[in-house]
C-alpha cells in the first residue's frame, strides 16, 4: 500500500512542474521584467529611481489608449453575439425541426481558423469587388460596406466578424442551459396563458442567469485575448486604429523588440483578466452556498 501512495504523487509531478514553471513562475518572471529596462534581451537590474518607467511609457503611448478603448468597443459590440445566441437557441429549442442542421451551420465558424474566415470577410468588405459592389448593382448606389478602410469604422468590421464567429458558441451554451429547464414550467406557463415573449423574458431569462453570466465572462476573456481576428481582418490598421491589448503586447515584443515594455502590457492584460475573473469566482462560491443551503 505504500506504493499506491507514492505513485499518484509521482504521476502528478509533470503537471505540477508545468504549473509551477510555465504558469506561476512565468507570470512572476514577466511581472518582474516589466519593472526592468529589458530591451531585446532580458536584463534583471531593476531601475530603482524609475521602476515604473515601462508603465508610464505604456500609458503615454497613444496606441495603448487606442487598444484599451478598442477593448471596450469590441466587448460591448461582441456582446450582441450572446443575445443572438440566446434568440437562436430559443428558436431552435422550440421549433425542433432541423435542429441538427441549424446547429451544424451555426457552429461551423468555430471549427475554422480566424485567419481563414478573416480573409473571407476582408474579401466581402472589399469596396470594388465585394458586397458593396453587389449592393450597387442591385440598386443601392449609395450603400457603403467599405468598413475596414476607415479608422472610424474598422472596429465595426472586426465586431461583425467576431459576432459571426462566436454566435454559434453561445447558442450551444444556451441550448444546454435551456435543456436543463424543467419542462413542467412550459406546460404551466401555457395553462396560465402567458405569451411567448413574456414567457421567455420574464421566466426563462431569469432562470438562466448563470448561463448568461458564464457567457459574459467567457466573452470578456475572449476579448482580452483577441489577437488572431485583428491580424486576419486589419493587421491593426488603418494606422493603429484597431489595435487591442493582446495585439499591442505581441507587437511590443516582436516588432519593437522591447521585452520590458511588452511585459508591462502583458501584466496589465493579466490585471484586466483578474478583474473579469473575480465575479466568476464569487458567483461560483455564491452558487455553491445556495445549493448547500437548499
Amino acid at each position: 500500500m505504500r506504493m499506491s501512495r507514492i505513485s499518484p504523487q509521482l504521476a502528478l509531478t509533470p503537471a505540477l512542474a508545468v504549473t509551477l514553471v510555465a504558469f506561476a513562475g512565468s507570470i512572476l518572471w514577466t511581472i518582474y521584467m516589466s519593472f526592468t529596462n529589458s530591451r531585446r534581451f532580458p536584463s534583471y537590474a531593476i531601475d530603482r529611481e524609475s521602476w515604473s518607467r515601462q508603465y508610464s511609457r505604456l500609458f503615454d503611448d497613444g496606441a495603448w489608449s487606442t487598444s484599451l478603448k478598442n477593448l471596450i468597443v469590441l466587448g460591448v459590440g461582441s456582446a450582441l453575439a450572446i443575445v443572438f445566441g440566446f434568440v437562436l437557441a430559443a428558436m431552435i429549442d422550440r421549433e425542433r425541426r432541423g435542429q441538427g442542421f441549424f446547429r451544424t451551420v451555426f457552429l461551423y465558424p468555430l471549427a475554422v481558423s480566424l485567419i481563414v474566415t478573416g480573409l473571407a470577410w476582408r474579401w466581402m468588405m472589399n469596396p470594388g469587388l465585394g458586397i458593396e459592389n453587389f449592393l450597387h448593382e442591385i440598386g443601392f448606389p449609395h450603400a457603403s460596406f467599405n468598413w475596414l478602410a476607415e479608422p472610424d469604422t474598422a472596429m465595426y468590421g472586426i465586431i461583425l466578424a467576431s459576432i459571426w464567429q462566436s454566435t454559434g458558441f453561445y447558442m450551444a451554451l444556451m441550448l444546454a442551459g435551456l435543456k436543463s429547464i424543467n419542462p413542467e414550467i412550459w406546460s404551466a406557463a401555457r395553462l396560465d396563458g402567458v405569451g411567448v415573449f413574456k414567457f421567455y423574458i420574464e421566466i426563462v431569462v431569469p432562470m438562466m442567469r448563470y448561463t448568461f453570466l458564464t457567457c459574459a465572462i467567457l466573452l470578456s476573456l475572449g476579448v482580452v485575448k483577441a489577437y488572431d481576428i485583428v491580424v486576419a481582418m486589419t493587421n491593426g490598421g488603418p494606422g493603429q486604429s484597431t489595435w487591442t491589448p493582446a495585439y499591442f503586447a505581441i507587437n511590443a515584443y516582436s516588432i519593437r523588440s522591447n521585452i520590458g515594455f511588452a511585459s508591462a502590457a502583458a501584466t496589465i492584460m493579466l490585471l484586466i483578466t483578474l478583474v473579469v475573473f473575480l465575479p466568476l469566482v464569487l458567483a461560483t462560491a455564491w452558487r455553491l452556498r445556495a445549493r448547500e443551503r437548499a
Partner: protein
Amino acid sequence: MTAQVLSASLPRARPRERRKRRIRGSSIAVLAFLSMCALFMALPLYVIVVTSFKTMPQIAEGEIFSLPRPWTVEPWDKAWNALCTGLECNGIKSGFVNSLKILAPSLVLSLGLSSVTGYALALWNVRWAGTFLFVLFMCAFVPFQIIMIPLILIVSGIGVYGTYWAVAVVHMILSMPLLTLIFRNFYKDIPAELMAAAMMDSGSFWRIFVEIILPMSGNILIVVLILMITSVWNDYLIGLTFAGFSAQPMTVILANSLITSRGEVIYNVDMAAALLTAIPPLVVYFGLGKFFVHGITAGAIKG
C-alpha cells in the same frame, strides 16, 4: 466550477414528448428566420469556395456571389505548389507537412499528460488535489501573452526554439489545465466500488489506469482529441511565436502570404490556400460534429 456546470449540460434526452402537429404560421416564420440566419452564417464559406474556383478575369468583374464560369482548379494547384510568402514561392504544402508534424506530438503529449493527471486527481487520495484543481482552473484563464516571453526564453535556452517539439510542448502546456479539468470531471463519476475492487485486485496506480480506466475512456478521449485537433490546427499565435522559420504551421504561412504580400493580389489562389488550410478541421467537424459540440461546451472555459 464552470467546467463542471458546463459539462453537466451535455445533450440529454428531453422528457417532453414530440407530438405530431401540423405546421403553424409561427413555425413557418421561425423556420424562415432561422434559414436566413443559416444563409448569413454560410456566406463566408460559400464566398471562399466559389472564388477559389473562379478565374481572375471573372473575379475582376466583381460579382462576388456568382458561380464560377468556367470552373478551374488552377488556383488550387498554384496554392498548393506555388503560393508566395515574401520572396519564396513554395506553396502551402510545406505548411501542411509542418502542421502535421506539430499536431502528432502535441496530441500525444497533451492527452498523455492531462489524462494521467486527471485520473490521479479524481480517483486517488491526494491531499492537495482540491488546491491544485483550483490553481489549474485559474491557469486555464491566463492570457498567453503573460507567459509568452519567459517560455520563449526557456525554449531558446534549451536550444529547441523553432522546432516542431517546441511548438508541441507549448501546446501541451497551454492545454494542460483545461484538458485535466475535463478528464478529472469524467473520471470522478467512476463508481467508488469499482475503484475499491480494482485496488483489491492489483492496487497498482499504472495497472489500474491502463487495464481498467483507459478502456472506459473511449468517449472522452474522442471528445478531447477533436478539441485538440481543431485548436492545434487552427492555432496561429503559438506557431507564430515558437516555430521560427523552419517549422511554421499552415496558418502562419497562410497569414504571411495574405498579409505581407505586396503588389497585385491573386484572390483565387489566396482563397484556395485558405480553404486548403480549413479542410482538415472542417472534415473533422462535419464528420464528428456531435463530439465537437460536446468538446467545446465541456471546454467552454477555453473561450
